[in-house]
């Protein structure tokens, strides 16, 4: 054979197209079953599980809900959530620091989607990696706690830039930790101009009504 020059092939393809494809399948499954899927992301310990526990408790009997929760190793969060009478399935992600659409698809057969109105997808605590992975959710909620620093939205712009709602958690601790509410909201708005922001406390219950409206799909 005679040698030819190296061939350059123009590809221009999204590296995560396989994930996006699976996410579209999940989204279609949720739509067919009439389920609103909500992806919750935050840094570790911002209060995702606490907010879901409170939500499962307060909306019990009004909205039929279940949770799929991603965790690197433990079953702790699923066990906490089951105490409130709702189905909670753990997705053990091992060394992977985010949920992806295939992990969610793998756990869906364990749910009776037709009997559900809301499926929460609690992501792994991490403000970087989950931002790249569409799970097929209807809405993405990004949480930031009053105890973690007002500059987070600009340090992790991708995560906040993909949020449909930003939830400021642990408002009961705001005064104690000197939380700068205006600065935090300014930074959120820089990362995602115009995004609705909900301030709440899962401990005291303050601000939960706006969150519950969002859960029901009635806007933030």
């Amino acid at each position, binding site marked *: 054979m005679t040698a030819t020059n190296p061939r350059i092939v123009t590809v*221009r*393809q999204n*590296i995560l197209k*396989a994930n996006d494809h699976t996410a579209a399948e999940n989204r279609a499954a949720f739509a067919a079953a009439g389920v609103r899927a909500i992806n919750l992301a935050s840094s570790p310990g911002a209060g995702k599980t606490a907010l879901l526990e409170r939500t499962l408790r307060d909306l019990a009997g009004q909205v039929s809900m279940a949770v799929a929760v991603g965790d690197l190793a433990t079953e702790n969060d699923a066990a906490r959530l089951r105490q409130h009478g709702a189905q909670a399935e753990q997705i053990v992600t091992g060394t992977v620091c985010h949920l992806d659409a295939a992990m969610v698809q793998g756990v869906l057969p364990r749910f009776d989607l037709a009997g559900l109105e809301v499926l929460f997808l609690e992501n792994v605590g991490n403000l970087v990696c989950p931002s790249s992975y569409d799970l097929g959710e209807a809405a993405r909620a990004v949480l930031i706690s009053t105890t973690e620093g007002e500059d987070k939205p600009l340090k992790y*712009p*991708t995560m906040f*830039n993909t949020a449909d709602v930003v939830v400021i958690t642990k408002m009961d601790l705001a005064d104690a930790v000197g939380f700068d509410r205006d600065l935090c909201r300014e930074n959120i708005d820089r990362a995602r*101009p115009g995004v609705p922001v909900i301030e709440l406390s899962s401990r005291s219950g303050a601000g939960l009504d706006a969150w519950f409206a969002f859960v029901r799909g009635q806007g933030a």
Partner: protein
Amino acid sequence: MHEASIALSLIDVASEVLREHGAARASALTVRVGAWSSVVPEALTAAFPACAAGTGLEGARLSVVTVPGVGDCPAHGRVTLDVTRGLRCPSCGAPTPTLVQGDELELDEIELAEPDLEDV
């Protein structure tokens, strides 16, 4: 760090292109990574060689091109954004609500390797 996951997905997409072109190996590939993609180029290039081992991408040179964020300012039109200041026009501070570019994560091109004599 999710760059290892990204590298594996990149290798899947690239391997598919190799198959489509009947090529066994690539010698180089270029990816475009937006400033708003949450992927750190250095981490991706660091993760790539180990992930590529044993595939047609083994030993391929990976170039990462960073794509800056671009927004649409009502007063200044297309403006290049500074990621540390968010979606705000650098000239007037007006919000630029959508990213015109800068969130991409794509395989741009592949250089197919010449088949070695042993492969023929």
